[in-house]
């Protein structure tokens, strides 16, 4: 792992014009406190080098823990949360900013290099108007007068496609949407006319239809201002749209570094090839057979005290051993549908049939047998498990509750389940904190399977996971479906996941099912407007995809 890879070429030969940013053999470490062990020093970045010329965009890509954000922040000589930069150089405009004293560093940050955070909602101060925050760096560093800075901000708002640019800055952060806030953050980064902007997962937290707009706005703004940029993301398809060069990182080391076209089209390393071909699971569609296992009929539901329906007249069927994918943006009612099915939110109208008979609307009215047959897996495996219970207790609980298994009998079944989720028996005595994200989700799957359910509702179960780990979870779910003949109601906002796993699809928008049918039916044109928007917004792993989609949309809006 630690020997340097000689096959990594630097995209730019030394000797051409002085680079804007030159990272040389960067080493970063942190003190970790593992449970039950002594604190120790861990290397997070192990000797990474990169160069960036003025006006170019470098993409940093890798799984969580690869060190990409840490490297991005090192370009501002900043270590987040006790992280220490222990070696190497970061040359910005020719001088090593790691050697600067605090005061000198403050003159670099916000003036020569700025930062766009993943969650703009958290990164804006809730107590200050947007405009005052956006022009703050420019004023602090004496780059412009207030009037000049505000004029520049307004023109950036315009470039970034924000509504009512002249008055946008008068609002407070909570008064604008997530996508607008992310664009405002980009404006904040560009306002002091820096030489370098670090974009740290700027579109990850956004809905897919919003992501494409923000991505296009960021790309336009980078081109228009001629600023250099580092673009950090875990989504190779996204970074392929904006970056000139891409660096693939894993465990704090460079796996591959080269021009975007080469990385996407001719990856040299095995790991890069895996990233490029991610989500290419082939799953032939199984046609529905026999009577539906779950039948949602005309369900409308509203939250208490809110006059608007969150679900209106939703009807879908799910057959035994099949997968129904419910897809839509946040706020479309996907999770509310799940809550209505499991009895957490009794429908205002309509009914839910399970195996041909109506389920009582309220959770409290349901028998233990009803509960057993219908299990759930959640997005945040972390919070879905009691951190003070071992894996054995977590998986064993439904065995005790539903089947009355005790002692050796229960442990035997726990071991079988651990085998089924491909984790092995050694994990039985571990605590959730000692598991990786993917392993945690596997334990949650085992817990759901322990009840021998006929239907599992999977609520965004792969959304919080890295692409390769998510792929593993999806493959596991498909295998388990074949073995256990369990049906999945699969809630997701990610179309690649839908393609990978679904037999039928329901597209939801504002509480209504706008399109429903088998996978082939739903994914075959002609589309309704919303499905078209949703499908065309999902990033594809090819160069120029963003421009194609935008051109296509312009033509459509022009009346073709």
């Amino acid at each position, binding site marked *: 792992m630690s020997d340097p890879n000689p096959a990594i070429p630097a995209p730019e030969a030394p000797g051409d014009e002085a680079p804007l940013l030159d990272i040389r053999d960067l080493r970063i470490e942190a003190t970790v406190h593992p449970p039950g062990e002594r604190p120790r020093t861990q290397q997070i970045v192990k000797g990474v080098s990169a160069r960036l010329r003025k006006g170019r965009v470098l993409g940093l890509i890798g799984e969580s823990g690869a060190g990409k954000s840490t490297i991005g922040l090192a370009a501002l000589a900043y270590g987040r949360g006790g992280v220490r930069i222990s070696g190497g150089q970061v040359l910005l405009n020719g001088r090593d900013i790691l050697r600067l004293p605090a005061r000198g560093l403050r003159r670099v940050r916000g003036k020569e290099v700025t930062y766009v955070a993943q969650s703009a909602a958290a*990164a804006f101060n809730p107590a200050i108007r947007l405009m005052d925050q956006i022009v703050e760096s420019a004023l602090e560093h004496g780059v412009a007068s207030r009037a000049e800075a505000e004029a520049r901000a307004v023109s950036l708002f315009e470039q970034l496609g924000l509504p009512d640019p002249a008055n946008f800055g008068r609002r407070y952060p909570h008064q604008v949407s997530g996508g607008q806030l992310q664009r405002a953050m980009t404006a904040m980064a560009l306002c002091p006319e820096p030489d370098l902007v670090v974009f740290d997962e700027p579109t990850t937290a956004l809905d897919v239809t919003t992501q494409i707009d923000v991505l296009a706005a960021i790309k336009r703004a980078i081109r228009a201002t001629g600023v250099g940029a580092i673009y950090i993301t875990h989504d190779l398809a996204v970074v392929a749209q904006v970056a000139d060069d891409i660096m693939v990182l894993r465990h704090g080391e460079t796996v591959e570094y080269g021009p975007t076209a080469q990385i996407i089209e001719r990856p040299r390393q095995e790991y890069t090839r895996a990233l490029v071909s991610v989500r290419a699971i082939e799953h032939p569609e199984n046609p529905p057979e026999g009577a539906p296992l779950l039948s949602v009929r005309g369900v409308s539901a509203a939250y208490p005290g809110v006059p608007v329906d969150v679900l209106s007249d939703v009807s879908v069927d799910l057959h035994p051993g099949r997968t129904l994918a419910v897809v839509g943006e946040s706020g479309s009612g996907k999770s509310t549908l799940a809550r209505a099915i499991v009895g957490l939110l009794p429908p205002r109208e309509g009914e839910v049939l399970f195996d041909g008979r109506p389920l009582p609307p309220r959770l409290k009215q349901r028998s233990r047998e009803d509960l057993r047959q219908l299990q759930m897996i959640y997005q945040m495996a972390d919070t879905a498990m009691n951190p003070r219970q071992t894996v054995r207790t977590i998986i064993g609980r439904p065995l005790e509750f539903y089947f009355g298994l005790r002692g050796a009998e229960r442990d035997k079944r726990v071991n079988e389940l651990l085998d089924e989720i491909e984790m092995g028996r050694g994990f039985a005595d571990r605590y959730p904190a000692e598991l990786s994200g993917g392993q945690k989700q596997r334990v949650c799957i085992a817990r759901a399977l322990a009840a021998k359910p006929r239907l599992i509702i999977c609520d965004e179960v792969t959304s919080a996971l890295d692409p390769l780990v998510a792929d593993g979870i999806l493959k596991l779910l498909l295998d388990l479906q074949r073995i256990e003949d369990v049906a999945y109601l699969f809630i997701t906002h990610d179309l690649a996941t839908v393609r990978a796993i679904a037999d039928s699809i329901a597209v939801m928008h504002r509480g209504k099912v706008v399109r429903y049918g088998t996978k082939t039916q739903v994914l075959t044109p002609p589309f309704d407007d919303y499905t078209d928007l949703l499908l065309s917004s999902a990033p594809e792993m090819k160069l120029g995809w963003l421009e194609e989609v935008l051109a296509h949309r312009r033509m459509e809006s022009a009346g073709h």
Partner: protein
Amino acid sequence: MLHPIVKLLVQRIALGLLLLFAASALIFAGTQLLPGDVAQSILGQSATPEALANLRAELGLNDPPVQRYFNWLFSALHGDLGTALSNGEDIAQSLGKRLGNTLFLAACAAAVSVPLALILGIVSVRYRNRWPDRLISAVSLASISIPEFLIAYVLIFYVAVQLRWFPSVAMISDAMTLGQKLSAIALPVAVLTLVVLAHMMRMTRAAILNVMQSAYIETAELKGLAPIRIIARHALPNAIAPIVNVIMLNLAYLVVGVVVIEVVFVYPGMGQYLVDHVAKRDVPVVQACGLIFAAVYIGLNTVADVVSILANPRLRHPK
């Protein structure tokens, strides 16, 4: 349509008034439970039964308690707090002067301690876990741990007796100029400041440190702002609510809880007045003082609530 914040504020203030009403009922009920008979205590042990009966009728003591309560409350709302039993003076008049003195002392102590607490809190955050922070914490904790009368006597001994900078007795009168008054109360103000400073300072520090964990503080750091500017401009406005709550609690203490200090420095304030009349079983005076203390407490806490609401941009500027 009414701004939603107006509705919230009206609710808070109405709640405060309701609370004050309940407190007045409690005060009245409490004094009724005290043993002894007011007429008896006025006329003394040797009074004839006829004289006692006459006085009871005159004072309205034969009316049912609920009616007496509303009579008392109604007069109190009109500024008539009755007459003191012990010396026959009009309570509102003698209380007014005392209250003015107490508020003067409290205001001077607040004018020193509140800004000082905020500044020291900000300095502690700026130099967190370094010597200025440790020093401020140690000194303020020591000052809150020592009983206030001890601090008072120590100050009297060194500052008043040995150094002769300020008088040891804080007597003030209308004839004095403002400068003379301030000089007279310098020592009690110093003691009160030491007593309330630590609590406010530590809450300021804790509230700001809590906000310093937020992502927007990192944004401010990455803008290259100076640490003190980050604390004052980005952290403090988001820490206002908890800080104001503690400030108001301490201001209330400055008005209501300074009996010991007033006695030590022989200051003619509310506390001493109350203590004197409790000793004399002067029920109307005790009731009046209780009512005013309750009003100050509830009033200041309502102010804290109102400021917290106004400090929240989500409420001030709804979507």
